[in-house]
C-alpha cells in the first residue's frame, strides 16, 4: 500500500521541470567552486611583498629575516615608489618600509615604525586572504623582536616588549590612496556594501519573484486567467501590471526584512571611522543611479519571473518555478560576498554581469570607488534584458501556450507578430 503511494508521489514530483533547474544549479555552483579555488590553498600561499629597509640595524635585520623566510619578496631596495610598482606587477599584497631609526627607536623604549603600503584589489572575503596572511607575518616580526628584547633584557617597558613596532598604513584601492586604514579595516567598513546590500537585494528578488510566479499559478488554479485575457486590456498592460504589483509587494517585504537584517549586521560593524573621512561617500546622483539600478534589475527579474510563471500549471508547480530565480539570486550574492567583481575570473565576471540582480548588489560599492561604467553598463544591460523578457512574456500571452501549454505554429504566429502589437 505505502509502496504504491510512494511510487505515485515520486512519479508526480520527479519530473523534468523540477530536475533540470537542480542539475543546472549544481553544475553552476560546482563551476564557481572550482574557479574560486579553495580557501586552504590560498591561505597556505606565501604573501607576495616588497621591502624597503632604511634602517639596517639589528632589529630591522630580525624583521627582514622573518619577512624573507615567510613571504615571497619581489622587491628589496630603497625606493618606495619603484618597489610599489614591482609589487603591483608581481600581484603582491604590500610594500613594507622599515623606518630609518627603527632599531634605535626600539632600543630607546619607543616602538619602531613600519610603513605598510597595502595594495588592495577587492573587498570580498576571499580578497582579504593575502592581507590576512601579511597581518600574521607582521605579528611574527613583533614576536621575534619581543623574544630578542626579553632574551637581552634590554627593555624595562612591558608595553614595548609586547608591541615593539608601530604601523603607519596606507591602502591603495582602485585608484584611491586611503591613508590610515588597512585592507581589513576598510573591508569591515564596507561590510554594509559587501553583505547587507547583496542579501537585501537577494531577498527582494526572491520575494517579488515568488509573488509574480505564484500569481500566475493562482490565476490558472482559480480559473481566473481566461476571464482576465478576454477583458479589454492590452496584454502588455497585464504583464506590466503584474510586474509592478509584485514589485510593490516585494519592496514592502524586503523593507521589513532589511530593518531586521541591517540591525543584525550593525552589531558586527566597527565604529573606528566613517567612510566619509576617507572620501568614500555617495552624492545625490550616485544614490539616483543606485535606485535606477535596483529598479531596472527588479523589473528585469520580474519580467523573467512572468515568463517562468507562464509555465506554472497551478500554485504548487509555481512554487517549483521559484527555485531557478532563487538560485540566480544566490549566485551573485555569494560571489560578491566572497570576491570583488574585478578580482573574479573572466568566466565568472560574465556570469555575474549576465544575471540582472548582480548590478544593484554591486552598484553602491562601485560608485563609492568611482566605477561609473560598471553601474551605467549594468543599468543599460538590465533595461535591455527587461524589454526582451517583457516582449517574450507578451508574446506568450498572445499565444495559446498560456491556456493550453502549446504554441500555435504557422500563419497565426506570423499575423500576430511580436508582443507589443495593440491587442
Amino acid at each position, binding site marked *: 500500500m505505502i509502496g504504491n503511494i510512494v511510487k505515485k508521489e515520486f512519479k508526480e514530483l520527479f519530473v523534468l521541470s523540477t530536475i533540470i533547474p537542480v542539475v543546472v544549479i549544481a553544475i553552476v555552483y560546482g563551476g564557481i567552486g572550482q574557479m574560486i579555488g579553495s580557501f586552504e590553498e590560498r591561505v597556505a600561499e606565501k604573501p607576495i611583498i616588497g621591502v624597503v629597509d632604511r634602517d639596517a640595524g639589528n632589529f630591522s635585520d630580525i624583521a627582514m629575516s622573518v619577512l624573507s623566510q615567510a613571504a615571497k619578496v619581489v622587491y628589496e631596495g630603497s625606493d618606495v615608489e619603484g618597489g610599489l610598482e614591482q609589487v603591483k606587477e608581481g600581484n603582491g599584497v604590500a610594500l613594507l618600509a622599515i623606518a630609518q631609526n627603527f632599531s634605535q627607536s626600539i632600543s630607546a623604549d619607543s616602538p619602531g615604525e613600519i610603513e605598510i603600503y597595502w595594495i588592495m584589489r577587492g573587498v570580498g572575503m576571499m580578497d582579504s586572504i593575502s592581507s590576512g596572511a601579511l597581518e600574521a607575518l607582521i605579528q611574527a616580526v613583533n614576536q621575534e623582536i619581543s623574544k630578542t628584547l626579553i632574551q637581552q633584557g634590554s627593555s624595562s617597558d612591558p608595553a614595548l616588549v609586547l608591541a615593539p613596532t608601530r604601523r603607519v598604513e596606507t591602502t591603495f584601492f582602485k585608484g584611491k590612496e586611503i591613508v590610515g586604514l588597512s585592507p581589513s579595516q576598510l573591508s569591515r567598513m564596507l561590510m554594509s556594501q559587501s553583505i547587507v546590500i547583496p542579501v537585501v537585494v537577494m531577498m527582494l528578488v526572491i520575494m517579488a519573484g515568488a509573488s509574480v510566479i505564484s500569481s500566475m499559478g493562482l490565476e490558472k488554479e*482559480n*480559473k*481566473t486567467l*481566461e*476571464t482576465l*485575457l*478576454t*477583458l*479589454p*486590456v*492590452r496584454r502588455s498592460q497585464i504583464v506590466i501590471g503584474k510586474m509592478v504589483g509584485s514589485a510593490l509587494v516585494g519592496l514592502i517585504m524586503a523593507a521589513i526584512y532589511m530593518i531586521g537584517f541591517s540591525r543584525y549586521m550593525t552589531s558586527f560593524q566597527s565604529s573606528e571611522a566613517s567612510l566619509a573621512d576617507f572620501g568614500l561617500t555617495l552624492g545625490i546622483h550616485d544614490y539616483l543611479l543606485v535606485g535606477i539600478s535596483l529598479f531596472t534589475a527588479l523589473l528585469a527579474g520580474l519580467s523573467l519571473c512572468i515568463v517562468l510563471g507562464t509555465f506554472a500549471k497551478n500554485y504548487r508547480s509555481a512554487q517549483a518555478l521559484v527555485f531557478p530565480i532563487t538560485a540566480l539570486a544566490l549566485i551573485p550574492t555569494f560571489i560578491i560576498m566572497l570576491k570583488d567583481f574585478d578580482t573574479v575570473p573572466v568566466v565568472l565576471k560574465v556570469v555575474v554581469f549576465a544575471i540582472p540582480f548582480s548590478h544593484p548588489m554591486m552598484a553602491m560599492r562601485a560608485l563609492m570607488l568611482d566605477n561609473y561604467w560598471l553601474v551605467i553598463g549594468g543599468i543599460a544591460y538590465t533595461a535591455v534584458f527587461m524589454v526582451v523578457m517583457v516582449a517574450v512574456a507578451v508574446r506568450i500571452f498572445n*499565444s*495559446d501556450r498560456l*491556456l*493550453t501549454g*502549446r504554441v*500555435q505554429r*504557422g*500563419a*497565426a*504566429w506570423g*499575423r*500576430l507578430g511580436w508582443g507589443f502589437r*495593440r*491587442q
Partner: protein
Amino acid sequence: MLVKAVQVKELVKDYGNFRAIKGISFEVNEGEIFGLIGPNGAGKTTALRTIATLLQITSGSITVFGHELPKEAGEVRKIISYLPEEAGAYKNLTGREYLNFIAKFFGEGEKFQNIVQKGLEIANLGERIDDKVDTYSKGMTRRLLVGRALMGNPKLAILDEPTSGLDVVNAQEVRRIINSSVEAGVAVLLSSHNMLEVELLCHRIALINDGMIVASGTAAELKDKYGARNIEEAFVTAIR
C-alpha cells in the same frame, strides 16, 4: 445590411498534430441565443475560446460584429464577455470587490457605478456580496460570474456551459438571467452538453461532434428533420 453578431467560416483549430475543429461554419444574429451542443471533447469549448480571442486560428475566419480576428482582437474584447465553464473569481476579494475590479475595465464614474449596480442585481447575493469569494458555494460563485459576464452590457456574451454543476433552482435562475439579457439586446453564444436545456433556451442550435457541425437550425427544424421527440434524439440520429 444587417451586421452579424458572429460569422465563423471554415474554422480549423489544431493543437499540435491534433485537429480539434475541422472546418466549422455558423452565424449568430443580433438578439438571438445560439447554442453549440455536443458531447464532451466535441470542440465546443475550443470554438468558444477561439471566438473569445483566447486561442489562435489555424485557418478559416471569424468576425464579431464586423471585427476580424485576430487582427482586431482588441476591438472584439471591448464588445464581448466570456464566461468559461470552470471560471473562478479572485478568492481574496469580496464579491463586490470582484465586480468593481472587472467594471473598471469598462467604464468610469457614473457608467462604472451603473455597471456594478447591474452586476449586483444579476448576482443577487444579498449581504453575502460583501463576503470573500472564498466562502461562496458553487452556485453563488456561478451567479457572481454570470453577473460579471452580463453587467457590462456586452454586444455578445459567450457562455461556456453556463449552468454546469448548478442545482435545478440555480440553473433556472441563470437561464432567466440569460433570457432577460437577450431581451435587452445582447447576442448570446453558448455551449452545453445538456441538450434538453439548450432546447428550452436557444433560438437556434448547431450540433457539433468530433470537431464538425453535423446539423444546425431551430430546435423544431432539427426535431422535424430527424423525426425526433427532442434534441437529444435528433443529435443521436444525426451522428449515426
